[in-house]
C-alpha cells in the first residue's frame, strides 16, 4: 500500500525541471500544486476512501478551515464527518482520542500547534502511550495536524516549533512535510497509519507551489513514514533541514555552489522515527554537517541529529557539527528582531563555510 517513491534528483521548490522530464510531451506535463491544495486533496481522498475518517477542530467546517485547508469538505461530506468545535482543545482532542479508541479515524486540527499545549496530555498520555500500556489492546489511529512554527509577525505565543517536544515521545509518529508531494504523501500515510501521528505543517508554506509527479496525484499515493529524502545530492557538506527550512537550505546550497562548495540537502520528512541511516550515510560521504531547524536550539532536533552522528559516524567527521536554530529567545514582534530570531539563508551559508574551514 505504501508506494516507495524513487525520486530523481530534483531541485525541490526551484523552477528548474529535473532532466527526467526534459523530453516529455505536453500531455504528461508536470502539474503544480500548492501545499494547501495538496493537503486538501489528501484529506478529500482519504475521507472518500474510508467512512471512518472524520475531521474535527475549530473552523474546519463552515469557515472552510482557518487556513482553508479543509475547504469544500463540509459541503462534500456533511456535518457528521466535518465537525466544528468550540474553542476547547483539551475537550475536543480528548474526544478525538476516545473516538480513535473505539476504532474511528479522527483527523484533529489544531489551529496552530501552539494551542496543542492545551491538549498535550491527551496527545501524549491518552494517545501515544496507550498501545504500550494496554499491551496492544488499544490502538489509536489518530492524526493531529495543523500549522507549526513561526508565521510572520504573530509574536511569541503563536510562533513556537513543537518538533522537538513531540519528537521525543515514544509511541508518536511526527511528520514534517515540506513540498506538496510531501504534504500529500505523508498526510495520506498518516491517516492510514494505525498509530497516533503528529503532523506538523507550516503556515508560510501553504501558499507555495511545487511540481507534483503523476504518481503523487494517484489516490493511492503514500510516502513511507520514517524515511528522509535527499533533496539535492552533494559531496562537500550535508545540510539537514525540515519543513520550511528545506527551502532555505536549497537556496543556501545554490549560493554555496557558486563558491564551489557542493551541498547535499536532506529533507527529514519525519522527526520520529528519525531516519538515522540516511543522515549518517550522508555524513559519511561528505564528512561535514550543518543541522537547521526553526525551533529553539536547546534540546532540539539538531541536538539529536548531532548526537546520532557523533555516536555512529564520529570518525567520518572532518569538522564539528554546526547547528542553526531559532534564537534562544521568545519570538519578538518588530520585523528586524523577528528576522534575527529566525534562521536565514546567510546563517546556513556561513555555518557550511565554517565546516569547510572557509570562514570562522
Amino acid at each position, binding site marked *: 500500500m505504501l508506494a516507495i517513491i524513487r525520486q530523481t534528483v530534483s531541485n525541490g521548490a526551484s523552477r528548474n525541471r529535473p532532466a527526467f522530464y526534459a523530453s516529455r510531451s505536453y500531455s504528461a506535463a508536470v502539474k503544480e500544486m500548492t501545499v494547501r491544495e495538496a493537503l486538501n486533496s489528501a484529506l478529500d481522498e482519504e475521507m472518500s476512501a474510508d467512512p471512518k475518517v*472524520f475531521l474535527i477542530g475549530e473552523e474546519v467546517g463552515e469557515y472552510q478551515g482557518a487556513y482553508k485547508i479543509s475547504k469544500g469538505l463540509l459541503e462534500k461530506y456533511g456535518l*457528521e464527518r466535518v*465537525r466544528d*468545535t*468550540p474553542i*476547547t482543545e*483539551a*475537550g*475536543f*482532542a*480528548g*474526544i*478525538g*482520542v*476516545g*473516538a*480513535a*479508541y*473505539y*476504532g*474511528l479515524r479522527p483527523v484533529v486540527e489544531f489551529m496552530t500547534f501552539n494551542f496543542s499545549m492545551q491538549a498535550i*496530555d*491527551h496527545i501524549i*498520555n*491518552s494517545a501515544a502511550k*496507550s*498501545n*504500550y*500500556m*494496554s*499491551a*496492544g*489492546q*488499544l*490502538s489509536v*489511529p489518530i492524526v493531529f495536524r495543523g500549522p507549526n512554527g513561526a508565521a510572520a509577525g504573530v509574536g511569541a505565543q503563536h510562533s513556537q516549533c513543537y518538533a522537538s517536544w513531540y519528537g521525543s515521545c*515514544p*509511541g508518536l*509518529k511526527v511528520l514534517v512535510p515540506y513540498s506538496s508531494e510531501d504534504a500529500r504523501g505523508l498526510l495520506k500515510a498518516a491517516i492510514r*497509519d*494505525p*498509530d497516533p501521528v503528529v503532523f506538523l505543517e507550516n503556515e508560510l508554506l501553504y501558499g507555495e507551489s511545487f511540481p507534483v509527479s503523476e504518481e503523487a496525484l494517484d489516490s493511492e499515493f503514500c510516502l*513511507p*513514514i*520514517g524515511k528522509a529524502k535527499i533533496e539535492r545530492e552533494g559531496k562537500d557538506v550535508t545540510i539537514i533541514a525540515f519543513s520550511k527550512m528545506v527551502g532555505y537550505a536549497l537556496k543556501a546550497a545554490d549560493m554555496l555552489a557558486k563558491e564551489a562548495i557542493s551541498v547535499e540537502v536532506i529533507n527529514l520528512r519525519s522527526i520520529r*522515527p528519525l531516519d*538515522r541511516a540516511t543522515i549518517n550515510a550522508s555524513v559519511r560521504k561528505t564528512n561535514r554537517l550543518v543541522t537547521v531547524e526553526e525551533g529553539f536550539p536547546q534540546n532540539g532536533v539538531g541536538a539529536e541529529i548531532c548526537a546520532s552522528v557523533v*555516536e555512529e559516524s564520529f570518525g567520518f567527521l572532518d569538522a564539528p557539527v554546526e547547528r542553526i536554530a531559532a534564537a534562544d529567545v521568545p519570538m519578538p514582534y518588530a520585523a528586524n528582531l523577528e528576522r534575527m530570531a529566525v534562521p536565514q539563508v546567510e546563517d546556513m551559508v556561513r555555518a557550511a563555510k565554517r565546516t569547510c574551514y572557509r570562514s570562522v
Partner: protein
Amino acid sequence: MALSRIASSSSRSFNLLKPLSFAISLRRSISNDTTPMTVETSVPFISHQCEVPSRSVETNPKELLTFFRDMALMRRMEIAADSLYKAKLIRGFCHLYDGQEAVAVGMEAAITKKDCIITAYRDHCTFVGRGGSLLEVFAELMGRQAGCSRGKGGSMHFYKKDSNFYGGHGIVGAQVPLGCGLAFAQKYSKEETVTFALYGDGAANQGQLFEALNISALWDLPAILVCENNHYGMGTAEWRAAKNPAYYKRGDYVPGLKVDGMDALAVKQACKFAKERALKNGPIILEMDTYRYHGHSMSDPGSTYRTRDEISGVRQERDPIERIRKLVLSHDLATDKELKDIEKEVRKEVDDAIAQAKESPMPEPSELFTNVYVKGFGAESFGADRKEVRATLP
C-alpha cells in the same frame, strides 16, 4: 428501619418468622430463580432538570445473589491486593475500591457489554465487572505476563477492549473527554449503545470535563458521566474542593441524578434510566453517593483527613454487601450459611488466582520494545545504553 420498609413494600409479603425448614422446602434452586420481585431503593432519587426514576426496582433472586457474590468477590480481591501490596508484591500505585462495589455491579446489571465503560485509576473492580478474570488482575498488579496488560500497564492501566472497557487512566479527568469520544464513535457508528465515563469528586472540577460535556450536549452524544462521589479527592474533602459539591447539578443545562451509590439496585435503576435517556436526549450526569474504606491509595492510611468513626459508621450503616445480605435473608432467598459459603468460595477463588498469578513469569526483556507502535516500519528503539541495547520496532 430500612429492612422493614423493604419487607412491607415488596410485592410478595413474607413472614420473617417462617420456620427455616418450611422455607427450605419452598425455595426453588436459588441460583437460577428469575421470578420477578420488586425492591425499593434505600432513598428516593433526586434529580436536576429531569424526571425522577421510580424507587421500585425490578429484580429477582438470581440477580440479588449474583450481586452478593460479585461484590463479595470484589471485596475479597481488593483486601487481598492490600496484603500483596504490603508484602511488596505489588509496586507503585494501588488504588482500592472496597466500599464502592455497588456502583460497578449495579451498572453492569443495567447495561450490556456493547455499552462502553471508561474510568480512572481505581479500576480493578470495574475491570472484573466487565468480565476480567482474577488471574488477569493479580498478575497485572504483580507485573506478570498473565496480566491483562501483560505486566506493562500496572494497577492503573487495566483494559478489556472485547468487553468495551477502555481503561484504566492515570491522569485525573482525562477519561471524561475520552469517554465522550467513545460516545461520539458509538453515535457515528449508529450503534444504539452508550458510554459510561466514571470520575471522582476530585475530578469533577476539571475544566476538560466541562469542555467535553459542552460538546456532548451540543452534539447529543450518548454519554453518561458518572461521578463516583466518595467525598474525598485524595486527602481533600469535597467541601474544600468544590464550591458547589452537588455534582449532579454541575452540568447546568445537562440533567443529573443523585443516587445512593451503596445500593446496587438504586445504581442499576439509575443506569437503566440514564441509558434510555442518553440515547434519546444526549448527556446526563449520575452522582453516585459512595464511600471508600481504604485511603486514596496504599500509601495513604486514609485516617488523617477523616475519622475512624466515620469509616466504621459507613461500614455499619451503608455497606453495599451487607445491604444485599439483609435483603436476601429477609426475603428468604438463601440462608445465612449459604451466603457464608459463597463468601468462602469466593475467598478460595481469590487465593487460587493469587497462587496462579505468582506462578506467572515476569515479561521477557524483549517486551520492553513491543507495542510501542502497531506498525513500526523497522524504526529503531534503544535501551539506556544505546550501544548495548537496540531493537527494531516491527
